[in-house]
């Protein structure tokens, strides 16, 4: 935790104020890359329904992920071509692990 009494500069409408600013405030926002399909939860890949080079439409099922007692359909977030399939059937994946990359 930062020193409670440490004052930093904060710009609001072009006026610079001296005030306490929590560390978490300084994280920069990074736009998400919509071509990356990551595991939203850890689980096991049950079935891969696509291959590299396949043309897919938004909403097409790319693979099935067994997690939270459910067979979850992982679908294409946008239309495009499958660039990389990073996992295979039976593989355990961690949260946020790359499953498929589109181009």
């Amino acid at each position, binding site marked *: 935790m930062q020193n409670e009494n440490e*004052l930093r500069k*904060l710009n*609001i*409408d*072009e*006026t*610079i*104020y*001296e*005030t*306490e*600013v*929590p560390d978490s*405030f300084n*994280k920069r*926002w990074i736009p998400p890359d919509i071509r990356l399909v990551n595991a939203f*939860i*850890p689980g096991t890949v049950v079935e891969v329904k696509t291959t590299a080079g396949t043309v897919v439409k938004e909403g097409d099922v790319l693979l099935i992920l067994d*997690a*939270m007692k459910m067979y979850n359909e992982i679908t294409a977030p946008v239309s495009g071509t499958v660039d990389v399939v990073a996992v295979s059937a039976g593989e355990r994946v*961690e*949260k946020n692990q790359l499953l498929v990359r589109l181009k």
Partner: protein
Amino acid sequence: MSIKKRLTEFGTRVQNLFKGGGDVAQEKQKKRGKLTARERVNEILDTSSFLETDLFVEHSSTDFGMDRKKLAGDGVITGYGKIDNRPVAIFAQDFTVAGGSLGKAHAAKIVKVMDGAGTRKIPLIGINDSGGARIQEGVDSLYGYGEIFLRNTTFSGVIPQLSLILGPCAGGAVYSPALTDFVFVVDKISNMFITGPQVIKTVLGEDVSPEVLGGARTHTSVTGNAHFYAETEREAFQQIKRLLSFLPANCLEEPPVHEPAEPVKGISDDIIPDNRRKAYDVTSVIKGIVDNSDFMQVHEHYAKNIVVGFARLNGKTVGIVANQPRYLAGVLDVNASDKAARFIRFCDAFGISLLTFVDTPGYLPGVDQEHAGVIRHGAKLLYSYSEATVPKVTVIMRKAYGGAYIAMCSRHLGASSVVAWPTAEIAVMGAEGAANIVFRKEISASDDPEATRQEKIQEYEDKFANPYVAASKGYVDVLTEPRKTREIVIKAFEYAGRQDHGNSFRRHGNIPL
């Protein structure tokens, strides 16, 4: 049976029930640094004031060998007592009895004392220390939780409901405290979460301790689920007593009136810094104005850019909302709006006048804020101030810019009186930002744009960074030196009545949530 024998039998029964889950379990509870349920009840209430009810209640479950199990009081102590000589209803889950688990009879006891609080129109204090639903009783325990949630809701705004988390409180059980007005937590004792560390580990592979996931510090500083943080159980009991001293027993009663008292140290005219970019601690202003300088913050460690809490003015309870320039320059953001809105609605429900101190540069910019729904959350602040019918007095100390000026209980949202200091700057935005927009052409066409910019900022400041433009239009009622604020505000409240929006026919509004 002789009377003597009957009385002996009675004595033995009571003695056994008072042992809760037995000596071993009680010892274990103490080793965890926790008081027993009975100790807690007796320490919170005035000496000898407790009237226990339903001590002899038993469960009627027969599955999984439950028919052979006797559970003292079915794991919860219920009844009535007094705090500072004012009646309250209370229940305390007893962790030593089957882990304080909630079965049908346990829930029925809580429901009964809740109904008792509702009909008597007295505050309800709930002490949570429970492993959760009593699995052996199946859906009956779910029925029990539902009955409790229903009452938490129907009594909301009728009687103050206070929750103490003095042990685990997990899964669905968390929603009873969450529905109440104020939640008290104690370091290293309180734990609240929907899914615990083990489930999170199994499902997500994430390692987190109960303390970090849902301990007292987390809930008072990160989630805002709890309002008051204490180091020890006894400190939490003192907080409860102090809080109740500000509150009426129900929404029909006036808050208790105390002997008026001057602040320990009043405020001087130079209480805030000359430079409007400099921070200061707004609680020093509040303490310099209220009776005895006695100010009890609610949500002290959460969304610190706004300060809310209870104090007295001329003996009467007021709810205070103040921007805190010390933290994030006192901006409004998602959490600050939620914190203030909830507090304002509590005060309005219980007839507690609202005193607002304004010094805010506006809303916090950022993708995070926009994506977190600052529009929807910020709207709660406008809604709750506009909706409130209690007397509302606003003191504009320094910056009151743009949308944030409107939101902070301006005249336009129905303030009874708006008071401003000569240092107030009521404007559509700060001078720097405004000059860059209004004089964009002049600045860019200038041979020395920076010099022109400074000149124009000064020009804008001279013209608009003051309270006189707003006062000339009647948006500010009273201008005063800081040192006279207490006197003015007391008068303003004295002459302010409750407002009537003329819409009592409506069922309820639809506050953005």
